[in-house]
Protein backbone atom coordinates (compact mmCIF):
# COMPACT_ATOMS: atom_id res chain seq x y z
CA UNK A 1 0.00 0.00 0.00
CA UNK A 2 1.29 3.44 -0.89
CA UNK A 3 0.56 6.94 0.20
CA UNK A 4 -0.63 9.47 -2.30
CA UNK A 5 -0.25 13.21 -1.94
CA UNK A 6 -3.26 15.37 -2.77
CA UNK A 7 -2.19 18.56 -4.52
CA UNK A 8 -3.81 21.89 -3.69
CA UNK A 9 -6.92 22.25 -5.90
CA UNK A 10 -6.41 26.03 -6.00
CA UNK A 11 -3.10 27.87 -5.71
CA UNK A 12 -4.02 29.67 -2.48
CA UNK A 13 -4.35 26.38 -0.64
CA UNK A 14 -0.68 25.51 -1.15
CA UNK A 15 0.64 26.65 2.24
CA UNK A 16 4.11 25.39 1.42
CA UNK A 17 4.34 27.72 -1.54
CA UNK A 18 2.97 30.74 0.29
CA UNK A 19 4.31 30.27 3.79
CA UNK A 20 7.10 27.71 3.53
CA UNK A 21 5.34 25.10 5.64
CA UNK A 22 7.07 21.82 4.81
CA UNK A 23 3.87 19.86 4.30
CA UNK A 24 1.54 18.49 1.65
CA UNK A 25 -2.08 19.74 1.63
CA UNK A 26 -3.38 16.20 2.23
CA UNK A 27 -2.24 12.61 2.00
CA UNK A 28 -4.36 9.60 1.08
CA UNK A 29 -3.35 6.29 2.64
CA UNK A 30 -5.06 3.17 3.90
CA UNK A 31 -8.52 4.28 2.76
CA UNK A 32 -8.27 7.58 4.63
CA UNK A 33 -7.41 11.16 3.75
CA UNK A 34 -5.28 13.07 6.26
CA UNK A 35 -5.46 16.84 5.79
CA UNK A 36 -2.89 19.32 6.99
CA UNK A 37 -4.16 21.86 9.50
CA UNK A 38 -6.58 24.14 7.67
CA UNK A 39 -6.30 27.88 8.22
CA UNK A 40 -8.43 30.71 6.78
CA UNK A 41 -6.65 31.75 3.60
CA UNK A 42 -8.07 33.00 0.33
CA UNK A 43 -8.14 29.86 -1.83
CA UNK A 44 -7.10 31.80 -4.93
CA UNK A 45 -4.32 33.98 -3.53
CA UNK A 46 -3.27 32.42 -0.23
CA UNK A 47 -3.82 35.72 1.55
CA UNK A 48 -4.55 35.29 5.23
CA UNK A 49 -8.17 36.17 6.03
CA UNK A 50 -8.16 37.15 9.68
CA UNK A 51 -11.54 37.89 11.18
CA UNK A 52 -13.95 36.67 13.80
CA UNK A 53 -13.95 33.00 14.71
CA UNK A 54 -17.17 32.74 12.72
CA UNK A 55 -15.76 34.29 9.57
CA UNK A 56 -12.54 32.31 9.83
CA UNK A 57 -14.47 29.04 10.27
CA UNK A 58 -16.60 29.73 7.19
CA UNK A 59 -13.46 30.25 5.10
CA UNK A 60 -11.86 27.10 6.50
CA UNK A 61 -14.89 24.93 5.78
CA UNK A 62 -15.05 26.32 2.24
CA UNK A 63 -11.38 25.45 1.72
CA UNK A 64 -11.78 22.05 3.34
CA UNK A 65 -14.67 21.26 0.99
CA UNK A 66 -12.48 22.13 -2.02
CA UNK A 67 -9.59 20.03 -0.75
CA UNK A 68 -11.68 16.98 0.16
CA UNK A 69 -13.53 17.07 -3.15
CA UNK A 70 -10.23 17.28 -5.02
CA UNK A 71 -9.27 14.12 -3.14
CA UNK A 72 -12.52 12.38 -4.15
CA UNK A 73 -14.06 12.78 -0.70
CA UNK A 74 -16.39 15.36 0.85
CA UNK A 75 -17.48 17.00 4.08
CA UNK A 76 -20.06 14.21 4.44
CA UNK A 77 -17.22 11.70 4.68
CA UNK A 78 -15.35 13.30 7.58
CA UNK A 79 -14.34 10.71 10.17
CA UNK A 80 -12.51 12.76 12.78
CA UNK A 81 -12.08 16.46 13.42
CA UNK A 82 -9.71 18.26 15.74
CA UNK A 83 -10.95 21.81 16.14
CA UNK A 84 -8.34 24.11 17.64
CA UNK A 85 -9.64 27.45 18.89
CA UNK A 86 -7.71 30.33 20.40
CA UNK A 87 -9.91 30.55 23.48
CA UNK A 88 -12.41 28.03 24.80
CA UNK A 89 -14.80 30.88 25.55
CA UNK A 90 -15.67 30.72 21.82
CA UNK A 91 -16.78 27.09 21.96
CA UNK A 92 -20.45 27.90 21.36
CA UNK A 93 -19.53 30.29 18.55
CA UNK A 94 -17.60 27.50 16.86
CA UNK A 95 -20.54 25.13 17.20
CA UNK A 96 -22.95 27.52 15.53
CA UNK A 97 -20.81 27.55 12.37
CA UNK A 98 -19.74 23.95 12.63
CA UNK A 99 -23.21 22.46 12.53
CA UNK A 100 -23.98 24.25 9.27
CA UNK A 101 -21.33 22.13 7.57
CA UNK A 102 -21.65 18.78 9.30
CA UNK A 103 -25.39 18.52 9.61
CA UNK A 104 -26.07 14.81 9.62
CA UNK A 105 -24.15 12.08 11.39
CA UNK A 106 -21.33 14.40 12.41
CA UNK A 107 -17.77 13.06 12.65
CA UNK A 108 -15.95 12.32 15.89
CA UNK A 109 -14.56 15.57 17.21
CA UNK A 110 -12.24 17.01 19.81
CA UNK A 111 -12.08 20.72 20.54
CA UNK A 112 -9.34 22.37 22.55
CA UNK A 113 -7.71 25.74 22.91
CA UNK A 114 -4.23 26.24 21.49
CA UNK A 115 -1.97 28.89 20.07
CA UNK A 116 -2.64 28.95 16.32
CA UNK A 117 -0.24 30.24 13.70
CA UNK A 118 -0.36 33.89 12.65
CA UNK A 119 -2.88 34.74 15.37
CA UNK A 120 -5.76 32.90 13.75
CA UNK A 121 -8.77 32.09 15.91
CA UNK A 122 -9.49 28.60 14.59
CA UNK A 123 -7.78 25.73 12.80
CA UNK A 124 -9.28 22.42 11.70
CA UNK A 125 -7.29 19.22 11.50
CA UNK A 126 -9.31 16.43 9.91
CA UNK A 127 -9.33 12.85 8.70
CA UNK A 128 -11.90 11.77 6.09
CA UNK A 129 -12.81 8.50 4.44
CA UNK A 130 -11.33 8.34 0.95
Amino acid at each position, binding site marked *: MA*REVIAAPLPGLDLRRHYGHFQ*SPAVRAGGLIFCSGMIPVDPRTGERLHGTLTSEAHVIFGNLKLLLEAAGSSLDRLVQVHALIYDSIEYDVLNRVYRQYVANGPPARTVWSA*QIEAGFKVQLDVVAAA
Partner: protein
Amino acid sequence: MSLPRKVIAPPLPGPGNRQASAAVRGGAFVFVSGLTAVDPATGAAIRGTTALETQRILENLKLILEAAGSSLARVVKVNVLMHSMLEAPNMNEIYARFFPEPPPARTVCGAHLPHGAKVMLECTALAPDDR
Protein backbone atom coordinates in the same frame (compact mmCIF):
# COMPACT_ATOMS: atom_id res chain seq x y z
CA MET B 1 -12.32 -9.69 10.50
CA SER B 2 -9.95 -8.32 13.08
CA LEU B 3 -7.02 -6.16 12.11
CA PRO B 4 -3.64 -6.56 13.76
CA ARG B 5 -2.81 -4.55 16.87
CA LYS B 6 0.76 -4.84 17.96
CA VAL B 7 2.92 -2.83 20.32
CA ILE B 8 6.23 -1.94 18.68
CA ALA B 9 9.14 -2.88 20.93
CA PRO B 10 11.11 0.28 21.72
CA PRO B 11 14.35 0.57 19.72
CA LEU B 12 15.80 2.98 22.27
CA PRO B 13 17.36 1.68 25.48
CA GLY B 14 16.01 4.65 27.40
CA PRO B 15 13.57 4.04 30.25
CA GLY B 16 10.55 4.82 28.12
CA ASN B 17 7.26 5.39 29.75
CA ARG B 18 5.01 2.92 31.50
CA GLN B 19 1.92 4.87 30.52
CA ALA B 20 2.47 4.74 26.77
CA SER B 21 4.13 2.61 24.15
CA ALA B 22 6.37 4.53 21.75
CA ALA B 23 4.40 3.14 18.84
CA VAL B 24 1.50 0.81 18.18
CA ARG B 25 0.61 -0.91 14.94
CA GLY B 26 -3.12 -0.87 14.29
CA GLY B 27 -4.53 -2.04 10.96
CA ALA B 28 -2.67 -0.41 8.08
CA PHE B 29 -1.08 2.22 10.31
CA VAL B 30 1.61 2.76 12.90
CA PHE B 31 0.63 5.33 15.53
CA VAL B 32 3.56 7.00 17.28
CA SER B 33 3.19 8.63 20.69
CA GLY B 34 3.99 12.29 21.21
CA LEU B 35 7.78 12.42 21.39
CA THR B 36 9.84 14.96 23.27
CA ALA B 37 13.63 15.17 22.97
CA VAL B 38 15.48 12.42 24.82
CA ASP B 39 18.95 10.94 24.63
CA PRO B 40 18.41 7.64 22.79
CA ALA B 41 21.12 5.92 24.83
CA THR B 42 19.84 6.83 28.29
CA GLY B 43 16.31 8.15 27.82
CA ALA B 44 17.30 11.32 29.69
CA ALA B 45 15.43 14.45 28.66
CA ILE B 46 17.31 16.83 26.40
CA ARG B 47 16.42 20.49 26.68
CA GLY B 48 17.82 23.04 24.31
CA THR B 49 16.78 25.23 21.47
CA THR B 50 13.73 24.41 19.41
CA ALA B 51 16.05 23.42 16.57
CA LEU B 52 18.09 21.08 18.76
CA GLU B 53 15.03 19.43 20.29
CA THR B 54 13.42 19.02 16.86
CA GLN B 55 16.58 17.40 15.50
CA ARG B 56 16.74 14.90 18.35
CA ILE B 57 13.04 14.06 18.17
CA LEU B 58 13.20 13.36 14.44
CA GLU B 59 16.33 11.20 14.81
CA ASN B 60 14.50 9.17 17.46
CA LEU B 61 11.30 9.06 15.39
CA LYS B 62 13.29 7.55 12.52
CA LEU B 63 14.52 4.76 14.82
CA ILE B 64 11.02 4.10 16.15
CA LEU B 65 9.44 3.95 12.70
CA GLU B 66 12.15 1.66 11.41
CA ALA B 67 11.66 -0.64 14.40
CA ALA B 68 8.03 -0.88 13.25
CA GLY B 69 9.08 -1.72 9.70
CA SER B 70 7.94 1.70 8.52
CA SER B 71 10.02 4.79 7.75
CA LEU B 72 9.93 8.58 7.51
CA ALA B 73 8.99 8.16 3.84
CA ARG B 74 5.81 6.31 4.89
CA VAL B 75 4.58 8.96 7.32
CA VAL B 76 1.16 10.28 6.36
CA LYS B 77 0.43 12.83 9.08
CA VAL B 78 2.43 14.70 11.69
CA ASN B 79 1.19 16.82 14.55
CA VAL B 80 3.74 19.20 16.03
CA LEU B 81 3.06 20.86 19.37
CA MET B 82 5.28 23.80 20.26
CA HIS B 83 5.74 25.89 23.37
CA SER B 84 5.56 28.99 21.20
CA MET B 85 4.38 29.43 17.63
CA LEU B 86 7.00 32.16 17.27
CA GLU B 87 9.48 29.28 17.05
CA ALA B 88 7.65 27.47 14.24
CA PRO B 89 10.17 28.57 11.56
CA ASN B 90 13.05 27.16 13.65
CA MET B 91 11.26 23.81 13.85
CA ASN B 92 10.26 23.90 10.17
CA GLU B 93 13.83 24.38 8.99
CA ILE B 94 15.12 21.24 10.74
CA TYR B 95 11.94 19.30 9.95
CA ALA B 96 12.41 19.83 6.20
CA ARG B 97 15.79 18.06 6.32
CA PHE B 98 14.27 14.79 7.54
CA PHE B 99 11.26 14.08 5.36
CA PRO B 100 11.69 13.10 1.72
CA GLU B 101 9.55 14.69 -0.98
CA PRO B 102 6.64 14.97 -1.01
CA PRO B 103 6.24 15.66 2.72
CA PRO B 104 3.40 14.29 4.87
CA ALA B 105 0.34 16.28 5.90
CA ARG B 106 1.02 18.26 9.06
CA THR B 107 -0.60 20.39 11.73
CA VAL B 108 1.44 22.67 13.98
CA CYS B 109 0.04 24.40 17.05
CA GLY B 110 1.23 26.02 20.26
CA ALA B 111 0.47 24.20 23.51
CA HIS B 112 1.63 23.84 27.10
CA LEU B 113 4.09 20.93 27.10
CA PRO B 114 5.24 18.80 30.04
CA HIS B 115 8.59 19.17 31.80
CA GLY B 116 9.69 22.29 29.97
CA ALA B 117 9.86 20.67 26.56
CA LYS B 118 9.80 23.11 23.65
CA VAL B 119 8.63 20.64 21.01
CA MET B 120 6.48 17.52 20.94
CA LEU B 121 5.82 15.56 17.77
CA GLU B 122 3.41 12.70 17.10
CA CYS B 123 2.73 10.96 13.84
CA THR B 124 0.80 8.36 11.91
CA ALA B 125 2.64 6.27 9.31
CA LEU B 126 1.74 3.48 6.95
CA ALA B 127 2.66 0.09 8.38
CA PRO B 128 4.79 -2.27 6.30
CA ASP B 129 2.95 -4.15 3.56
CA ASP B 130 4.31 -7.54 4.49
CA ARG B 131 1.85 -8.53 7.24
